[in-house]
């Protein structure tokens, strides 16, 4: 079937197998490989992107369900290291990433969390990250980064 998804502001149209997962559409058709696949039970959140502004696990969305809709990946947040989004800047400042594999999904989950709750408590940040696994950081600095971004520290 044919789908057209607006990805990071640009329309990406292609003929795809009906069962194509959105994450594979983003990686293989749109060529945006920052978003990663980390599991097969919708548990890890590495594939998190924004669909019409809300965080979703792109491994549990069919590309067909995103047809005609708008998706933002971390590359769309900013793909220019010199002009990073406050959340990206905060992640760097607070050492909130190590191997980087969970990071694109973690950043997008953080962006969505702050959009819905601009001034979260630490507890709200932690429960807001329940759907995003990280094995390297122990989450300590990720939580710091999100709270710093909320405060506008990275400005």
């Amino acid at each position, binding site marked *: 079937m044919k789908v057209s998804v607006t990805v990071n502001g640009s329309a990406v149209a292609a003929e795809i*197998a009906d*069962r*194509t997962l959105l994450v594979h559409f983003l*990686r293989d058709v749109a*060529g945006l*490989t*920052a*978003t*990663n*696949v*980390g*599991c*097969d*039970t*919708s*548990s*890890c959140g*590495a594939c998190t992107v924004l669909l019409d502004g809300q965080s979703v696990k792109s491994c549990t969305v069919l590309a067909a369900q995103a047809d005609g809709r708008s998706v933002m990946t*971390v*590359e769309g*947040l*900013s*793909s*220019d*290291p010199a002009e*990073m989004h406050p959340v*990206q800047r905060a*992640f*760097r*400042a607070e*050492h909130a*990433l*190590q*191997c*980087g*594999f*969970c*990071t*694109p999904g973690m*950043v997008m989950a953080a962006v969505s969390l702050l959009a819905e709750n601009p001034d979260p408590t*630490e507890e709200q*940040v*932690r*429960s807001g*990250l*329940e759907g*995003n*696994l*990280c*094995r*390297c*950081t*122990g*989450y*300590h*600095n*990720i*939580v*710091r980064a999100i709270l710093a971004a909320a405060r506008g520290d990275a400005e």
Partner: protein
Amino acid sequence: MSILGTRVVRTEDPRLLTTGGTYVDDLRVPELAGAARVTFVRSPIAHALISGVDSAAALDAPGVLAVLTAQDIDDLPPPPPDDGPGPEGSEAAPVPLGGPWAEPLLAAGRVRFVGEPVGIVLTDDSYQGEDAAELVSVDYAPLPAVVGTAVALETQTLLFPGTSSNVAVSVGPPADAATSDAFEGCDVVVARTIINQRLAPVPMEGRAVAARWADGKLTVWVSTQNAQIARFVLAGALGLDPAAIRVIAPDVGGGFGAKVGIDRDAIAVAWAAKRTGRALRWTETRSENLVGMTHGRAQQQAVTIGGTRDGRVLAYRMDIVQDTGAYPRMSGFLPALTSLMAAGPYDIPRVQTAFRVVVTNTTPISAYRGAGRPEATAAIERAMDLFSAEIGMDPAEVRRRNLLPPEAFPHTAPSGAVYDTGDYVAVLDKVLTAAGYRELRAEQARRRERGDVLQLGVGLASYVEITAADAANGETARLVVHGDGTATAYTGSSPHGQGHHTAWAMLVQAELGIPMDKVTVVHGDTDIIPEGVGTYASRSLQLGGVAVHMAALDVKEQARRVAADMIEASEADMELDADTGAWRVRGDPATSRTWADVASHAGPGGLVAAVQYTEGRPTFPFGSHLAVVEVDTETGKVRLVRHVTADDAGTVLNPLLAEGQRHGGIAQGVAQALLEEMVYDPDGNPLTGTLADYAAITAAELPSFELVDSETATDINPLGAKGIGEAGTIGAVPAVQNAVVDAVSYLGVQHIDMPATPARVWAAISEAGKRQ
């Protein structure tokens, strides 16, 4: 003002945060254009004979290029013959046992664990691969499954027909009357069997490899912690000259010890690429990863601890049965390390250890963050608490009375390990003070008095651990200062999150005054860095970093000669301003030359220093952890409220990076204590085979950690640095486990095995209630 010891944000991050890392599955290099996809056919049964494999239906499926099985593997060198037991100590080498224990690339005639590969399907794309793999029909004739160490020891069923038992390695005398002499003079002797449960490493990126055979050369891109070791292993396995193999480690999404060298399944993919002449890619799914990537831990530990009523520990014995899974890939390496560190930071006069390694019909076991040392610390720390409870003394006080004093170093432990430097009482005191230990005990007492539902538990762990255990292998560095004044450091280390590019650039800036943003660090490509060891065993800073430092010193001396020559001054008069990177005659700024000037003058290749570095001795970081938990005594649910640590790994190069390693280590330790376990049913079926069932820890289960600083330099290397990568895990596991037991000890609970899930805690409370 040196940059060393300061918090420097990582140079790796801007790319990782924006366009993302390039992990194996992200590679879009021309060499892999048109690569076929690999899907494995894996055994769904734990132990069986294979009577037939029928690929006909699969071969007819869309996009299928080939289906390969063990029958097709006829071009590999034969495994080395089994000459009987190797030299003494070889059972402790992390090398697979050969001979009758040899592991095939693809199962031939028999499968020994759920997930063992039986075949490879090659397709145009991965969706087709999953469809086709389902169509490969394998006839299994089930055999009795051997699951768990007890069954492995008692059963008549042998996994390997050529052997006489399921015991692959046996070291040390069994416990008997003679060894009970060790406990003479002890007022109190406590014995307990403790389980250090099987875990899955779960790096966020699973195993992945791409391979291409062209023009007599095999190129392999693999998610690995050691490109050079991977090449060495591939050469041996495939019967190739190492010079005919190039291994590249792109960005690697976590390893934790499970990506050391190259995995068996990745070797199979490389073989298939050479066999078919087709470029191939394989990226495992998470379900595959949970049964196909090696697991960690899985020790049964019979511990006996004895001492005096006034708190002095006199004797400690550990009998370990190490479950190694279906194939002994690490021989006796892990329990040998456990035995080496058995006594921990304590001055215990009589220490005995013995271990046996058994095979079972489960996923093979290998290194996982700490690799044998978390097991050692968890055992001795549980034993210390059992001993404390038996004599009715505060566990902090018991530790204080038994910790090696600061004047004891260097200290040779009963196992032969030589601890370099340490101040164990100091870190214990730091943590007790930072945590407010007295007030915690007072709050605990108040809650017990009131009979609160939510009870407080305080758990301690004092530890010492061994880093760079393979220091003899050393590490390489090659540093080049180019004619334009920039520098490139080629390191044998292989970071997968540790931040070596930042840290090694800091070392170059500190020594040479070349700013970090002009220093490029390169790792992980055997064509560019043919010699190197890689990153595991928390070795990289004290070996790889020091190698970079030594190379910088070498470059500096070369530059001194060149600069002197340029200015026609004497070498003795030349100085380097490390803040500005300027060479000049001392006191004469007019003679100032830049690194670009000097490197150009040196010749077309600039200034080059190559170093192979080691002192040949491991280092021994140490620390104390204190965990505070709240236990709901009506449901058994545990909440980690606080976690306070002092982890001393000598001189800290970059506190930001060191803290990050501690945080990550603590989280994995807490996860073992409270949540994670790879569980098999008695037939060898994994019950935790997806991330929905395997309880990997999330941010919601953890507090922010409280880290206390402590830096006791080692005298072994010029940076004074030890390794920090695994220490957090080693200290956290027992601190949390002890805290849980401590919370409900007033109800009569003496021990709870990990993970301390609500059901387990509740069962312990119930049973203690029945006993009273």
